[in-house]
């Protein structure tokens, strides 16, 4: 059994406080970039410090995809989730088949899971789970 590999390095990690997305924050203008950028995407400054976005977000919108693609069988759910610093993230949503789409504004929480297998290894990526009742981090 080999260790799972992340989809790519530097995007996310598990911490004592739970999983988090990794971003960069510009010390010149305050813009937050996800995925983290070596150079600010807004002002161009190279003064970037790493920030953790945490795991709490809020659903902007979601859709169920009824055609499969290479990695995902038909019936998978995806959406945009708004994270702290206003970062909009596209991701899979953990919704069971037949379950209603979560409404816009639903609090969502991040999880890091094996998303598919490649060359005998699990590939780790992130997705969001509805967490109704949880306070949205940026509300």
């Amino acid at each position, binding site marked *: 059994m080999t260790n799972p590999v992340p989809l790519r390095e530097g995007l996310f990690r598990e911490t004592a406080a739970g999983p988090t997305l990794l971003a960069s924050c510009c010390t010149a203008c305050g813009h937050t970039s996800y995925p983290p950028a070596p150079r600010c995407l*807004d002002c161009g400054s190279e003064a970037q410090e790493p920030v953790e976005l945490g795991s709490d977000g809020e659903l902007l919108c*979601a859709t169920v*995809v009824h055609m499969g*693609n290479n990695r995902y069988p038909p019936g998978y759910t*995806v959406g945009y989730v708004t994270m702290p610093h206003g970062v909009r993230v596209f991701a899979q949503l953990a919704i069971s088949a037949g379950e209603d789409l979560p409404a816009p504004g639903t609090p969502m929480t991040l999880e890091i899971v094996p998303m598919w297998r490649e060359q005998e290894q699990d590939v780790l990526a992130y997705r969001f789970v509805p967490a109704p009742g949880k306070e949205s981090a940026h509300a």
Partner: protein
Amino acid sequence: MREVFVLGVGQSDFGKMPERSIADLGGQAARAAIADAGINSAQIQAVFSSRVYDAMITSQTIMKDLGVTRVEMVNVENACAGGSTAIRSLYKDIAAGFVDLGIAIGVESMTTSPIAGKLIPPDRDDLDGQLGLSMPVLFALQAQRLMETHGATPEDFAQVSVKAHDFGALNPRAQYQRRFTVEEVLASRMIADPITLLQCCPNTDGAAAVVMASADVAKKYSEAPVRIAGSALVSGDYDFRRSDITTLELGARAAARAYEQAGVAPSDVDVVELHDAFASEEIVHYEDLGLCARGDGVGLLRSGATSIGGRIPVNPSGGLLSLGHPLAASGVRVICDITDQLRGRSGASQVPGAKVGLAQMLGGVATGLDAAAGSVHILTV
């Protein structure tokens, strides 16, 4: 900068034709455009061609069968906006005086491409693509947001498709030359909520070509050539710079540049051809092109202004939804259709007295951008 004119336009058949080669499809469109222009192919000084899938020396592959050799030939790719990019590139060369007469071609064989029958994905290494994003998913999420912010309904999105097929039924070139009801569109197979199969453009093979010329050449061959009064091509911007996903700001920026260059206002435009790969996006384009105020896209659709006989008919060709969408061909095809409208030869779908037409095409997605390429051309007579 010199003025640039459309001298002739041509299209191949559109449909599922895996047996037909790129040279065959492109050649059919190029021959038709050359004949329409009334020129001899030996006069062509430059060729710009576009193709997305398995592209290699597309111009040369097509033109060697037409006796055109030893001239400058360029092959461009810009996803669905590739054809517009070929037009724009030739436009710039003629405007700058490098050449006086050339041809722009867009061609695609979708049925033999690696994505035949699949959801069109972003680039293989794109992050969002790896997480499950594809073109219909992108537009389904936008449609979900339109329902939230604009009061749009699934019936509105279906109505865009009904409108496209009402027009397409009048166009002998349409792949699907038949009409549908809102109920039929809604009852077709769900692809990505709320987008159903009949709200998605079909996989289609085809080609389109446009012969363009400087004023001196154009007036020798035509008494009333169609002028390219505005031409713009812009790349996408960072997604974080747009307030919401209910706009594709690169389309708005391309439109603003083209309007300014042409010296026309959105209210001057008589007819529009635009990217309706998915029905719901048409409502966004209405707003980005300034055909109505921001937030009023659904109202414009419901008013019937963009339908047959309306104030500003959109996609009287039948659009991508009924014609089909051979990716790189579509940006050239919209120039062909607007030219035909301005020449008054669009038959049953003719917009009476059309003098100013707008051709728009957008293409490509990549993580972090609103889209990849946006192009708007304004044509006048």
